[in-house]
């Protein structure tokens, strides 16, 4: 496989920072964009900028077709039973907030419970806390073990009583551990509890089949999976989307509007109030094409080798403590969060930055996890198939140099 051919499709990879080649290891925050996605976005902005679904003129029709083609593509990508279960949002956060609000309005009452896990991103904690505050409900939290796996026994025990919905992450953005979401959905459904899966990281690395997973909702962002920023998806089972009240009122989400009362459109329109991200959403089509080509074939084996090299190098270094230790290699995405004894994560990130390496440092929007592992922050490197073995080797060498400078 010619990795350079892949890299050529991502213009930002040829950028220099401080005169050095950029090593982009902050992919869990956002992925770089391939030319195909940039071109689609440009085309939608340059040639077919028109508002969708309303006007009868030519460009509006093209724009609408492109937007709706993206819905079909996402539906196939997720193996969703119907295109009406695909709601476009601005990102994972918006998708989760939509469910926390709308589902909450319809089904959560005083004294009810909402179940989350300790591995959640703030975006899958705070909307539920806000819901609980609004409704007088109670947030229950299932813990993770020392290796970063969700404690299924404690999760099971919490499933019951007055839990009305559970929200679990497919893959933690800190630990990189792939959670057994299918099993967790089964456990919840046995207790009659619907499940939202936060797929912000999962969608990028795991094959997602929402029918097989049987989740009630699956939320993810476009920008982490090569699509334009400001795009996101909420997949929802029809029965819920139909019963849930709208999240926002406005244009497009209505059937008829009278001052005496308004009726709402059917899903997904009911949840797509206002002008949508008309230039961004069509980029899902080339983005999914890119993702499917990169997550299969030759690049899979190459990525695994890079991943293994990083895992081995980091865990062999006695100064380094890695969080999220997989029991099987397939349980982990190429993401490594770690702390270095006696060295502050931010100092490391600053030095690595000057060496041209983009990493993430801090609490990574997961303060409860930082508390769980007794640290004030971590350093995180996260890779995509366009990252190379050379970059990984340069990173390990640079990290060693930075640690020596700081100790």
């Amino acid at each position, binding site marked *: 496989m010619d990795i350079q051919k892949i890299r050529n499709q991502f213009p930002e990879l040829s950028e220099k920072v*401080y005169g050095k080649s950029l090593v982009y290891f902050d992919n869990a925050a956002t992925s770089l964009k391939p030319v195909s996605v940039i071109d689609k976005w440009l085309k939608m902005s340059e040639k077919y900028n028109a508002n969708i679904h309303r006007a009868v003129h030519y460009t509006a029709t093209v724009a609408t077709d492109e937007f709706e083609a993206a819905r079909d593509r996402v539906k196939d990508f997720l193996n969703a039973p119907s295109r009406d279960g695909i709601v476009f949002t601005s990102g994972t956060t918006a998708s989760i907030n939509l469910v926390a609000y709308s589902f909450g309005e319809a089904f959560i009452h005083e004294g009810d419970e909402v179940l989350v896990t300790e591995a959640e991103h703030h975006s899958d904690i705070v909307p539920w806390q806000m819901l609980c505050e609004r409704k007088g409900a109670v947030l229950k939290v299932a813990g993770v073990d020392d290796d970063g796996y969700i404690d299924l026994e404690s999760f099971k025990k919490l499933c019951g009583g007055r839990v009305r919905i559970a929200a679990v992450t497919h893959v933690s953005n800190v630990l990189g551990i792939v959670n057994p979401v299918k099993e967790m959905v089964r456990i919840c459904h046995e207790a009659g509890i619907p499940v939202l899966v936060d797929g912000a990281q999962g969608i990028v690395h795991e094959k997602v089949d929402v029918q097989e997973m049987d989740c009630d909702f699956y939320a993810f962002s476009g920008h982490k999976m090569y699509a334009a920023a400001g795009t996101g998806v909420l997949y929802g089972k029809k029965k819920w989307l139909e019963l849930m009240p709208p999240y926002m009122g406005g244009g497009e989400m209505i059937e008829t509007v009278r001052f005496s009362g308004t009726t709402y459109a059917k899903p997904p329109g009911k949840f797509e109030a206002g002008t949508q991200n008309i230039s961004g959403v069509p980029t899902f089509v080339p983005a999914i094409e890119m993702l499917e080509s990169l997550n299969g074939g030759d690049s899979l084996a190459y990525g695994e080798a890079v991943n293994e090299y990083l895992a081995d190098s980091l865990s062999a270094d006695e100064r380094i403590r890695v969080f999220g230790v997989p029991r099987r290699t397939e349980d982990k995405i190429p993401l490594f969060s770690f702390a270095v004894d006696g*060295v*502050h994560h*931010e*100092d490391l*990130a*600053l*030095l690595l*930055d*000057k*060496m041209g390496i983009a990493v993430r*440092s*801090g609490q990574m929007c997961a303060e409860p996890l930082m508390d769980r592992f007794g640290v*004030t*922050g971590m350093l995180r490197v996260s890779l995509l198939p366009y990252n190379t073995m050379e970059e990984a080797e340069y990173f390990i060498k640079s990290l060693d140099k930075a640690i020596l*400078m*700081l100790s």
Partner: protein
Amino acid sequence: MGSTLQEAKDRLIEDFSMFDEWLDKYEYLIDLGKNLQPYPEEKKTEDRLIKGCQSRVWMDWRLEDGRIYFTADSDAIITRGIISMLISVYSGRTAAEIAADDFSFIDRIGLRENLSPTRTNGLLSMISTIRSVAQNNI
């Protein structure tokens, strides 16, 4: 101290101008950080914590013979280096001297544009603490 506020600033600007590479400047900041005067553990309290930094920064001060003496600490070493610079320039000065300063030497060293925004915020928070202590003591 011996030197004036202006002399202390000039010395730092000169020290930093000796390095072309930013990695070397960081090395220098790390050295300054390692040699920062010890800060008492019992003064690492919530009310002395400066908001706006990704790393934690505690700052304390006392007034003695009309001069303000600052002490500070951080859990990150590069931040400790920055603290050390700020202390060498502003500690032991009168409130009026500090309040009259425009803090532009930070820009002349190139610190502001070479630190990430989160770190710059921390730097700005430290500066605004020093400034408000001075203003409250005029």
